[in-house]
């Protein structure tokens, strides 16, 4: 049996909303509590480190602004990817999917550079409370971006194989939901951690 891009059976659902999409919204709700707890902890522990380096010694706002812009642009690419897949334009669908993943990878690269630099400047997870909360919060976000990149690349490969078409638009839409959510979380982290010191 070929499991190539066959149209998903249009199941009847009581709420008229695709089941996978509904599950994903529930998942995003759950993730809000996860990041909510992490961000709250960051705020509760803000200014309580007893030794440096402190945030203002070490955070590089211009550099991270570029990363943030990069991630915002990846969301734009994601929107374009979904639109292309929905209208059946798989040439641009592939391009935009790959660009989204690429910008995600650039963001991750930025995070690797940032983390390495911080460690060189003496900030590790065991240095102080800022180190603990910063690395676990931004690290958890980075892990989410990494999962998203893997997911987008998988879709891109499927598209290259010709197994992703307008019939799978819902899959791309759900990927987009995840990607935009991870992006929105970053906007909050960027504001809370970097901009409001």
């Amino acid at each position, binding site marked *: 049996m070929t499991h190539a891009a066959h149209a998903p059976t249009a199941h009847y659902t009581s*709420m008229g909303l695709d089941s996978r999409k509904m599950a994903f919204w529930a998942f995003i709700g759950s993730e809000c509590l996860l990041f909510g707890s992490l961000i709250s902890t960051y705020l509760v*522990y803000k200014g309580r480190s007893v030794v440096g380096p402190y945030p203002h010694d070490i955070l590089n706002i211009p550099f991270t602004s570029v990363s943030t812009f990069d991630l915002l642009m990846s969301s734009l690419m994601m929107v374009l990817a979904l639109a292309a897949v929905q209208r059946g334009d798989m040439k641009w669908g592939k391009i935009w999917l790959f660009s989204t993943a690429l910008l995600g990878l650039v963001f991750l690269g930025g995070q690797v550079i940032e983390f390495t630099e911080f460690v060189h400047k003496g900030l590790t997870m065991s240095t*102080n409370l800022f180190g603990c909360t910063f690395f676990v919060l931004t690290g958890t976000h980075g892990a989410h971006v990494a999962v998203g990149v893997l997911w987008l690349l998988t879709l891109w490969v499927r598209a290259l194989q010709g197994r992703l078409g307008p019939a799978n638009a819902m899959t791309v839409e759900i990927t987009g939901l995840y990607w935009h959510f991870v992006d929105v979380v970053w906007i909050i982290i960027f504001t809370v951690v970097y901009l409001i010191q």
Partner: protein
Amino acid sequence: MKSWLTTTDHKRIGLLYFWTAFVFFLLGGIEALVIRLQLAQPSGHVVSAETYNQLFTMHGTTMVFLALMPLSASFFNYIVPLQIGARDVAFPRLNAFSYWVFLLGGLFLNASWFVGPLFKAGMLNVAPDGGWFGYANLTERQFSPGPNIDFWLLGLQILGISSLAAGFNFIVTILNLRAPGLKLMRLPVFTWMTLVTQFLIITAFPVITVGLVFLMFDRFFGAHFYVHGAGATPLLWQHLFWLFGHPEVYILILPAMGIVSEVLPTFARKPLFGYTVVVYSGILIGFMGWGVWSHHMFAVGLGPIADSVFAATTMLIAVPTGVKIFNWIATLWGGDIRGTTALHFAVGFIAMFIIGGLSGVSHASPPADLQQTDTYYVVAHIHYVLFGGTIMGLFAGIYYWWPKMTGRLLSEPLGKWHFWLQFIGMNVAFFPMHFIGLLGMPRRIYTYSPDLGVSDLNLVSTVGAFLIAVSLLVFIANLWRTRSRGETASNDPWGGATLEWSIPSPPPVYNFSVIPTITSRLPRWRTELHAPMQDPPATPPGPIHVPGGSWWPMVAAFGLPLMALAPLTHTLWLAFVGAGVLIVGIYGWAFEPFEV
């Protein structure tokens, strides 16, 4: 065998949940019996202090995460799709994944009883020993150097994934797979309470996950989330834990409340009194459950304002709970009552839960709570709500739905013996704990002095615990007897109003030969406005597609304990192997042909 390992059928997964959770329930019970043996007399020497700490920690952890939650889950799995007229859950393979993760997480936690030598611990058992709420900073590496707490924090993270996956699955199942005409306000109360419980699960579990992740980084990577000297506060753990922990209490009790709301109307031959109010009370409890967590922390000294607010919210949450109790009593009032075992357990639930609720309100008041904190009074309270409440409710469900799940009725005379022994046993075991606590015996201390004046009461409590054990032996005998000699159940042995009784016992793999259309809240009963529904025909009019099994959920599930073994054994490559297995499992799952 293969068909069970690869099954995605919600009914089979429900049975797997039941048997696995029941074994863990017996294990937690044996742990309790050893605790009671140790406390039967002052200065007892049955176990060492270290082993005692492990026993009460694992008793609590096992009962909450490996017995009560998955026993409820067995009914979510088996009964909810039947009550909403569905052929399966929304994501059958995710459902199988939840089960395997639960099983592996439970085995991972309990492996700690035997692997001491591998960690050169000097004793066989290195089970978690920090209490089921594992207060920081006692759980930091400095104060708990062994692998005990590591098993606990890694095991709970694994189990959390199981609950979360099931949570998303059942929310979508209940909202999206209802039979035509089954509006939300026509859902059976058990299904409603399941829905509320799932929302609590998907919001509460991320919070404890974060708390556990912090603890993991503290213990393995030298972070300072709960280290006072670094400027941190161990109170962060308490807030994160109880932000999860109090909703968890409702995760444990709401399903039992749902079961009772099914059993009472059936055996009183009356619709549930005030259905709408019962449903809204359940939803309200779900919301208010998020606003009471600091009543677990009155002794911390959060200040008069925080204490007052949490005292008030805690007393307020008793209101919707009380509303439900009056509705259940009113359901019985004037009913045509049949005194089945299931009804006995349901009424026992109401009585015992009232006692537990009242002692609960008594420590909603901070001045009273300060006297009760960390004493046996609290132990008495939680056992009245979780044993007298949840377990009584679950047994009501077992006696009620066993014929549906297995096709055979449990013996009623044995069931009555089981009920009365358990009912008397639990009161003998737990009621004296109120006095033991008020007389000053602290919980979680492995022994006590004869001068405390609680020796006789403790002996009585131990006798009660063994009565409960005897009652469970009667139950097991009943299960055994029913296997071959139980009376065969018809579609509807009780005259139930809900959809699960319209199909054979046990149901065929496709559940409903024809998906029914629902026009009433009590579809199988005659009401003033509605004639009873037509039961679906015995043979389906056409072929029905049933999804086949899959190995991938189990493969993916195996990745998680492998990853958890990596920090435990300080073996980095295991983390990569575990992640690899998980990824292979997920890709196999995503790309295999599988049509729901």
